[in-house]
């Protein structure tokens, strides 16, 4: 099995290196094909490992070599394939294989085709390291590695200012969270003496709760950054500047779920600190609602999907925070499939529309792009959580978890958000595929994507539809390492009311979306309509003014403070002090050089003056010594001594 582990891990790296050989040369199909095939190999290996695990095999654990060892610290490159990581490996390899093949078509006309594949495969490698590592440091390697690749891929079209800006934003914001993660790792090390998962978690029960709470919090801060949880969420929407396959792979299916993975992986820790878990769940619920609300009014296709991703990540955190780790992981998996599908569909639309992103400028595309239409609709249905697609099984389960754990506020929020989710998803579908063909105003001639791209997407479609069926198999497998809590509403009555109620609510929201946006009255908004001038619309469309706030109150002050530090403090205070000391010495010289007037008379006077001054001192001192008794008497009389 070790062979397959290494194969799964290093095939993407090989692909990346291969593609980077062609990095600076012209587009070369082979630079896309080879990495894709290698990824497929990786996928196959992962599948073999999955089968191995499913068939009751032991977790595969290898230690490749030492990375760092000093003092008591020992960090190997160790890899672990257990039930949790194999799930992640499957998700990662499936989605990335699909995305790779899809990208061969999508990036067809791009000059930097080869570079794209180099980075994309590198990303997969980093992600594999992240999920397969058996220790926190290895996790951190992957963690930062995906950050790097994400940076390079968001800023892939580096000539665009917005793209590079978004790339840097993503990187820096992730770094803020990474600091938390790093501190969390330090805490783990200094309290347990190791960074290996199994040893560290084994040592944790004997630690003080305070320490555990802090560790949990700091690790979660790391997770917040990668999974774009509030308040570190702004980068995700901006990250949509990258090529769409990147969004599908990184910003929907894999990287952003790393945070969830981390919490799931650290479940022994979080189990011991339920108060942090509740915080995670609450934040998750908040983000679910918060992101969904922003998706309601957004006019950028990819951003809508990105907010949707954010919202779904919130759901996952609710599950993870409430201790239902396997549920979180299950939703993570299901979400990866249908969200990647949705993104790739959006990619097709973008291609067809020459990179137009405003769904209001599309409409009626279902004729031109039948398959895309079907796929996106199904993906949206899955996202909305309608029976029997994947979303139903995974998302409704989270609602149930919240209900069963008696977190009714969270439950209500999630339920409401489910309605919003359905609404904005179908608002998007309706705007793109139904109604008038508004794109004609802009002189675009849409066409369906390459057939092989559609075929490449099909596995995702399939999985989006049927993933729910594996729920119990999955449960049995993954609970070998995760807490095996089954979530069943106690009374069947309540269960059915909840389920049907939820379904009805969601369907109503879809219907409303269709009613509002699938008709021929939809116009391209021009900022004059009543709705657009409502306060709440403005707040939502400006993302609660949070990016504005960040720009005005963090970025600008930072920039200005930097300038002040340089020009005012560094140059005018610190450096000027140093130069000032030198200048004082120098000017003292200039000022006193008059003493050396060159006039003999003056010179003689200096000599005499010096002598007389010394004489005076001598006389004073001599008298003081001679009359010291008297002086002391006088002084003591005066009360000095």
């Amino acid at each position, binding site marked *: 099995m070790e062979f397959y582990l290494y194969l799964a891990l290093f095939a993407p790296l090989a692909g990346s290196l291969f593609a980077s050989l062609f990095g600076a040369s012209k587009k070369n199909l082979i630079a896309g094909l080879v990495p894709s095939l290698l990824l497929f190999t990786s996928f196959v290996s992962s599948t073999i490992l999955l089968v191995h695990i499913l068939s009751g095999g032991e977790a595969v654990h290898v230690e490749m070599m030492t990375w760092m060892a000093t003092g008591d610290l020992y960090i190997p490159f160790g890899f672990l394939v257990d039930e949790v990581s194999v799930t992640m490996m499957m998700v990662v390899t499936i989605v990335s294989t699909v995305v790779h093949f899809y990208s061969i078509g999508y990036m067809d006309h791009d000059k930097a085709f080869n570079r794209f594949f180099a980075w994309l495969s590198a990303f997969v490698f980093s992600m594999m390291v992240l999920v397969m590592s058996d220790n926190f440091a290895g996790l951190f390697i992957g963690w930062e590695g995906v950050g790097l690749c994400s940076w390079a891929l968001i800023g892939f079209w580096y000539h665009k200012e917005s793209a590079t800006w978004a790339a840097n934003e993503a990187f820096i914001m992730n770094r803020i969270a990474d600091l938390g993660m790093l501190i969390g790792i330090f805490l783990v090390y200094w309290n347990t003496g190791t960074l290996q998962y199994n040893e560290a978690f084994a040592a944790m029960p004997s630690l003080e709760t305070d320490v555990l709470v802090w560790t949990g919090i700091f690790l979660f801060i790391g997770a917040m950054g990668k999974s774009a949880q509030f308040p570190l969420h702004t980068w995700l929407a901006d990250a949509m500047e990258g090529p769409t396959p990147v969004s599908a792979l990184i910003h929907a299916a894999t990287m952003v779920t790393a945070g969830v993975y981390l919490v799931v992986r650290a479940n022994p820790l979080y189990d011991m600190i339920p108060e942090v878990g509740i915080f995670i769940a609450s934040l998750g619920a908040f983000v679910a609602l918060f992101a969904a609300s922003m998706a309601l009014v957004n006019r950028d296709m990819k951003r809508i999907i990105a907010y949707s991703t954010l919202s779904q990540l919130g759901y996952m955190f609710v599950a993870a925070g409430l201790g239902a780790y396997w549920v979180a992981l299950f939703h993570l998996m299901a979400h990866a499939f249908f969200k990647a599908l949705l993104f790739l569909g959006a990619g097709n639309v973008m291609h067809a529309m020459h990179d137009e992103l405003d769904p209001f400028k599309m409409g009626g595309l279902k004729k031109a792009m039948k398959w895309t239409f079907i796929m996106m609709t199904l993906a949206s249905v899955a996202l909305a959580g309608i029976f029997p697609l994947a979303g139903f099984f995974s998302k409704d389960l989270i609602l149930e978890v919240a209900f069963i754990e008696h977190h009714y506020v969270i439950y209500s929020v999630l339920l409401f958000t489910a309605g919003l989710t359905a609404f904005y998803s179908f608002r998007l579908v309706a705007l793109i595929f139904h109604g008038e063909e508004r794109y004609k105003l802009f002189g675009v001639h849409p066409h369906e994507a390459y057939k092989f791209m559609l075929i490449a997407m099909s596995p995702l479609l399939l999985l989006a539809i049927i993933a729910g069926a594996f729920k119990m198999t999955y449960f049995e497998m993954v609970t070998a390492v995760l807490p095996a809590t089954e979530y069943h509403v106690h009374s069947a009555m309540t269960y059915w009311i909840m389920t049907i109620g939820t379904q009805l609510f969601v369907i109503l929201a879809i219907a409303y979306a269709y009613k509002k946006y699938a008709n021929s009255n939809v116009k391209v908004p021009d900022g004059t309509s009543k709705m657009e001038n409502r306060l709440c619309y403005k707040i939502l469309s400006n993302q609660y003014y949070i990016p504005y706030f960040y720009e005005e109150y963090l970025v600008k002050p930072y920039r200005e403070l930097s300038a002040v530090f340089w020009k005012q403090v560094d140059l005018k205070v610190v450096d000027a002090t140093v130069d000032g000391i030198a200048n004082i010495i120098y000017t003292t010289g200039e000022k006193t050089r008059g003493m050396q007037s060159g006039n003999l008379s*003056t010179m003689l006077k200096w000599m005499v003056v010096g002598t007389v001054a010394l004489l005076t001192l001598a*006389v004073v*001192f*001599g008298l003081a010594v001679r009359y010291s008794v008297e002086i002391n008497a006088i002084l003591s009389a005066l009360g000095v001594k």
Partner: protein
Amino acid sequence: MLEPINVSLESLNLMTLAPMLIPIIGALLIITIDIIKGGLHKTLYVGLSLLFLLMDFGALLDASGVFAQNGTVMGVFDVMMIDGLAILSQFIIVGASMLFIPLALTHKRFHEFSYPEFFALFLFMIAGFQFMVATDNLILVFVGLETSSLALYTLIAMHNRDKSFEAAVKYFTMGALAAGFYSFGAMIFYALTGSVEINQIASVLTANKFEDMGFVLVAVVFMLASFGFKLSLVPFHTWAPDVYEGASAAMAGFMSIVPKIAAFIVVMRLFEFLVNSGVVWLEIVIYAFVVVTMTAANIWALIQTDVKRMLAYSSVSHAGFVMAAVLIGTTQANSALFLYWALFTFTNLGSFSMLWISRQKHLPAYQSSDHSYDKFAGMIQTAPMAAVIMAVFMLSLAGIPPFALFWGKIYMISSAVNADYKVLALIMALNSAIAGYYYLKLIVYMFMREPIVGSNGHVYVANATLSLKTIIGFAAIGTIFALIAVNPLLEFITSFVHASGF
């Protein structure tokens, strides 16, 4: 009736006079030769002077052997005193003179060297210095001091330029005043103790527990003023830059070394017993002198535009630095003084000689003075070897290891440290940093600026002859490889200083 004088020649110990008599004989010989046959070439006189100095050195070696065996030797009615300090300082005096004399063999003709009197006076001067250091008697100190000073004034004036005369007059006048101070100070000591011999003065003063402290201090003040002038301590230093500028570069280099070491010896003999017997006032005053002289001279050196004047101020500053030894007064400090000065001899004489070989007869228009900084711009390109050597001297003066003066500096600072003068040690160290600036300035000019158009490398060695180059090479080797010499030198010096009771 006076008793008939009955002194055995044995007890006179005339051998103690030998080192002083040799240069005097040499001087007389030179004058005699000139009387017999005038117009002889200067090489003859240089050769003769060198010969006598060499003999002098030999006599000193002999004396040092005697000292190593028998300790301090008194002679000639106990007026002469050949102790470790006397021998060490005479080594420096005679050694530096031997390095100086060949500098007369310049390529260009200079007025003073055509006179045999120059060499005669020079030898008289050396004898004067030797007397100064080899006695305990204030009268003989005075005689030695004045003999050498008067000769020196004349030597400066013989350079025969307006500035030289101005320098000589200034030096002379101030010297006369200083002589007045000296004699007045000696008079008070005499009045207080009835003796003019330092050790007797010391014992009398100690015996009566410094009863008349006020008068002792007055005497000390006059002595301080007098030797402050000789050592160029601020504010008695005003002559130094002008006289250095007026004198020829070679003479200036000589003046920065030899008269000062002689004066230091007297100061050591005179003041250290006072400092050690707890005259707090003197300690404070010398402390102030040390700090002010080091710092002020450094600051003034910063703003100079002429290298020679800069070196003048730097010499003042170095003197202040070394004065710290008198303040500290331990064996280590006194040894450090000699070590420092021996190493300083090489470096400073070398750097002044570098100026000497670049001496021009006529100043070009772009140059404001004989040795202005501009003159040395871009020297690395036109005369690389000379530039490197000059840089080495500058680095040594700045105290960059492993060059000569560094060793003197650390030993001196270390002696301050060991005697618990913490602040003083810091001030000494930081002053070296200030000093770094002006030495560096010359290096900057030589290495980092573009040469002035039209100047070629010849100007820097215009005055050079083989003998001058030899001297400079000698100085450079001494400066660079001082590291090797430090240990034997230190051991030699320390044993002598220790044996002299200092």
